[in-house]
């Protein structure tokens, strides 16, 4: 076993508070590769792990809206002026007030679609099998258990001290795995 060996320790908790406390203490040990699996978004955990709201996904949706607005308007402009100019009661070919409705709907559609596809892309989904999560410890993370998975290097911190943190906060189950 060399100093650069990385290993992973998985701890299962019955309470979100114990999990958050554990995560906080592990960060105190200088560990940064901490991932938690929870049945619902735990606000304090996100704060502990310094996960921010917004970010690139929000900008992706804004960009989607912008693209949608341009495309939505342009297709109507192209239709009514460039390709098939139709004189209806002398109204201008570029009747922008009438075009805003269609452009508005397409703007929103593109924004939502950008968020929808952006979300799966950013999460790396669909991913039906993840070897790091191939353990029974994760089976109830989508229902009623809170699972922490921490990766560390042997030279960084001893396995035992991580185990102790898990045990101190009442982890129901602790597992070691290759990282």
């Amino acid at each position, binding site marked *: 076993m060399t100093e650069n060996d990385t290993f992973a320790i998985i701890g299962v908790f019955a309470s979100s508070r114990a999990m958050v406390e554990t995560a906080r203490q592990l960060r105190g040990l200088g560990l940064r590769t901490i991932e938690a699996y929870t049945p619902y978004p735990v606000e304090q955990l996100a704060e502990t792990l310094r996960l921010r709201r917004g970010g690139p996904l929000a900008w992706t949706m804004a960009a989607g809206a912008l693209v949608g607005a341009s495309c939505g308007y342009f297709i109507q402009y192209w239709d009514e002026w460039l390709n098939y100019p139709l004189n*209806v009661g002398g109204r201008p070919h570029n009747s922008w007030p009438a075009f805003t409705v*269609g452009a508005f*709907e397409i703007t929103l559609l593109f924004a*939502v679609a950008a968020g929808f596809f952006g979300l799966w892309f950013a*999460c790396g989904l669909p991913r039906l099998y993840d070897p790091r999560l191939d353990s029974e410890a994760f089976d109830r993370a989508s229902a009623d258990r809170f699972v922490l998975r921490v990766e560390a290097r042997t030279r960084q911190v001893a396995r035992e001290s991580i185990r102790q943190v898990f045990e101190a906060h009442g982890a129901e189950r602790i597992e070691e795995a290759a990282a």
Partner: protein
Amino acid sequence: MTLATDDPGALPIVRPGVTLTSLSETVSGRLLSRRPPLWWWIGFGFASMLLLVLIVAVVNLFVAGIGIWGVNIPVAWGLAIAEYVWWIALASGGTIISALFYLTRSPWRAATNRIAETMLLSAAACAGLMPILHLGRPGLFYWLFPYSTVMGVWPQVRSPLWWDFTCLLCYILMSIMYYYVGLAPDLATVRDVAKGRARRMFYGVLALGWRGSARHWRKHQTVYGIMSAIMAPMVVSVHSVVGLDFAAGLTPGWHSTQFPPYFFFGAVISGTALVAMLTILVRWGYGLEGVITDYHINALGKLVLLGSVMLAYAYLFEAWGPIYGANVADRTEFASRIFGFTAPAYWGKVALNIVVPQALWFPAVRRSKPALFVISGGIIVGMWLERYIIVVSSLHRNYMPSYWGDYYPTVWDWAILAGSIGLFLTLFFALLRIVPIVAMSEVREIIAKDGAP
């Protein structure tokens, strides 16, 4: 019994016995049970029979043409258009509950939003069908798409009818995406609870491999929040544009600036009424009393009441316009509306949508499930009458007396109505067996907030 315990608003939103474990088992268990319960078979069987009626009616319609309906000149829009507006209003209610009340962080939304959105998708399918049936040449509906044909002909995008087509198309697509983003974590729960390999694979694929990682949750929250903020104005625009279909027509009774909000108010009341009915049914059928409590019923009752009051305001102005304005045609049409051909429907809608729902001011009525169910059912009927009046009454008393006429729906008109209800119920019952009908991840947050682990 003290006053405090009488007030559902003061009660816990989720019953104290419900834990994270029991919630997941209960909601997933309803999908994973080998045999659906008896009530489901009865409902689904009834719905499928009505769906057969729709299939027969549509085949006959496509073969024989819309002459089998009662529509003719001058009343060229009949039940199909009225039902289009009716269904899209019912659908909109689903988004109002799930998007608007997500933004307000209303706690009762968590257990009811999946029912509301499932209703939305089922009703939107019915709404999308109606205009196509009404087209006369349904095979050419794709001419509404703005694409460059060899004929060089484009749709007329200055027309509200085209706006409406765009709205409906965008709305349905957006609703599906919004639904799925909220659904994926719950599908993951069902995958993990399921025992059989086939079911695990089915839900595993549907869940896209969602594992509930904290990083993923953060992204999920970001996107879901923004999507809600987009869906809320979207649903307002959808039903407003349906209102514009009429308001932009130079027909007495239609040509009114109040139509967009008037239609939206109608969507609020009819959509929430249907959600209230379905919530009461699903709660009873699936035994979800622990998650859907009196708190939810009370909140839905209040929302129905609010919709009724808003609609009363619109009805007042619907009457005020012709009376205060000096347009003879408007007055003639309105007189016919309230005293003439459509009078029974008019007073029926006033009674069902405005008068009866006022009983919801009394807490005892609001919290009584049978009472709320019956009042909501009355509203659904009343809203159908309202759409019927709007569509028919104006065309039957147009400007020229020589252009007046009556409209009598034929048996095929009614078959389409019955059949569309069948389509709605079939979709809803089918989804009841496939998707977790309570947004578990959101209810868990409420359980957590109330002090459990």
